[in-house]
């Protein structure tokens, strides 16, 4: 019995993996975006092996241009820009991942509850979400981040709050239409409890939409994270961080030391492009299948 269960789980996992790889390969946008994101993820995971120097120690003379010894040059304190850029990916990816997971989970949960129960509760939730949505997202994120104090976790929470309404609105809208489907009515007529109806009969139908919102938000969240770190609201120096390194490099670019700013900036852009490509591809695949 246990064996059977295990093989079933393994089977399901491998089927899911197969499905995922089929989706990735089916569209060149998704494939390109996926490769870009994958490179950054690997970079973050394997930073200890890739980076030639420690990111926070002074390893050579200050403001050296890119050379064989220092691939992306050194900064104004003599630290290796290449190593800092590689380690910097950790902060961005982790903060964004936590932010997206948090906002996705909370937004979806609230959307399900609000949409299914409806009535006064729905009106209250929708009002709160619309109020959050009405704020310019970056300003709200900065305000929250300042209020909570600078740290990567707080930045993640701030970004999460900004994106919760997006998930909430999408999920709620879907639930409102799905809950009137006859199969929901029949599930009720068969005595299936509400919690089960929501988790097993409504949530799976929302998945498709969630995927689109999810991939759209991630590119946006990367940029929001970079903005927060640009003004020093995530990790504190001397920890490497693209946004903050960008900020520091700003003072040197006019005097010709372009490498301090260009490399972290390029990484932010490329990562955002990677997610944007994936989102583009995912929405084409999903809407294409619908048609």
């Amino acid at each position: 019995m246990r064996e059977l269960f295990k093989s079933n789980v393994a089977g399901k996992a491998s089927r899911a993996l197969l499905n995922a790889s089929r989706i990735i390969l089916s569209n060149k946008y998704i494939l390109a975006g996926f490769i870009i994101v994958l490179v950054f993820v690997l970079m973050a995971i394997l930073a200890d092996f890739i980076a030639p120097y420690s990111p926070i120690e002074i390893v050579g003379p200050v403001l050296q241009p890119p050379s064989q010894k220092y691939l992306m040059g050194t900064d104004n304190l003599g630290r290796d820009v290449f190593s800092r850029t590689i380690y910097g990916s950790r902060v961005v990816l982790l903060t964004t991942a936590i932010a997206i997971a948090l906002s996705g989970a909370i937004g979806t949960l609230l959307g399900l509850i609000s949409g299914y129960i409806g009535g006064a509760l729905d009106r209250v939730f929708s009002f709160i979400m619309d109020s959050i949505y009405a704020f310019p997202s970056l300003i709200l994120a900065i305000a929250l981040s300042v209020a909570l104090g600078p740290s990567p976790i707080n930045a993640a929470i701030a970004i999460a709050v900004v994106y919760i309404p997006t998930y909430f609105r999408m999920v709620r809208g879907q639930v409102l239409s799905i809950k009137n489907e006859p199969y929901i009515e029949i599930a009720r007529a068969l005595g299936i409890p509400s919690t089960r109806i929501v988790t097993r009969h409504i949530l799976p139908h929302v998945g498709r939409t969630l995927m689109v919102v999810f991939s759209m938000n991630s590119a946006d969240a990367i940029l929001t994270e970079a903005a927060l770190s640009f003004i020093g609201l995530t990790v504190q120096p001397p920890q490497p961080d693209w946004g903050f390194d960008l900020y520091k490099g700003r003072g040197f670019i006019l005097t010709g030391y372009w490498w301090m700013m260009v490399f972290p900036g390029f990484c932010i852009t490329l990562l955002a492009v990677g997610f944007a490509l994936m989102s583009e591809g995912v929405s084409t695949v999903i809407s294409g299948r619908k048609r």
Partner: protein
Amino acid sequence: MSTLEVKDLWVKYYTFSGIVSAVSGVSFNLRKGEMLAVVGESGSGKSTLGLALLNMVPKPGKIVKGEVLLGGVNVLKLTPEEIRKIRGSRLSMVFQDPFTTLDPLRKIVDQFEEFLLEHGFDKSKSRSIVKEYLEAVGLPERIMYSYPHQLSGGQKQRVSIAMAIALNPEVIIADEPTTALDVVVQKQIMDLIDYIKGKYGSSIILITHDLALALERADTVMVMYGGYIMEYADKKELLNNMKHPYTKALFEALPRITTRILPKSLPGYPPDLRSPPQGCIFHPRCEYATEECRLKRPEMIEVGKGHFVACHLYR
């Protein structure tokens, strides 16, 4: 002793444009093993009646008055958890459109088992019940592992019926179970419902707009119009001794095979239930309407044994 007893049931929808009285003072008894057909055109309140019996009237509808006694217990007075346990196990329902009554993302066996598990069966037992009942409705075992889109409409309706009968409910409410199906499948499904009635002894409420189907299959026929019962009688009694002008009009609207009489249509439209006509709800379309019909709502009167009619003509 009746299995199901409905006493003076009133259901109203509180819409923005007014209060709609969808079911007005409906009472009837259902014996064990009896098939009652509720006949009426669209908007006659027959589907609302079916949902009301399960206390499942959708918002903004509300059951404002009445009792639904199942084995002497008022279903409308139960707590949500108590009524949940009754739904599907003692009172179950088959819906009209089989194409949308199954969750498209889940296999038949998953949906069926979920239902059984929620009613207290264990996993191994429920698997055998699924097999047993799919076989009982004439489906091969392999369709268990199919998704709804892989089945035909008739097969899906059979799955719905299998789920509706699996816990041997006392009453099965079938809301237009054959309307979305073609005639051949329609006959098969009705034969299946007859067979289930015989084999499991369930009482069946067949909600339909098709008087011919009702007269062919049911034991008792209840004709509804505008939320009111117009006529209620044994099938044979009704066939031989049709009383209410509306029932007669419905009957005359049926196409005939044996004679050359053309079907006659009933002029006019169903009443706007937000502002129903005064007096008898049918009087604007009734060719026998008198002054009294315009002013006074007719009471149900017994014109023969178990034959009730709500019409001033038979007082």
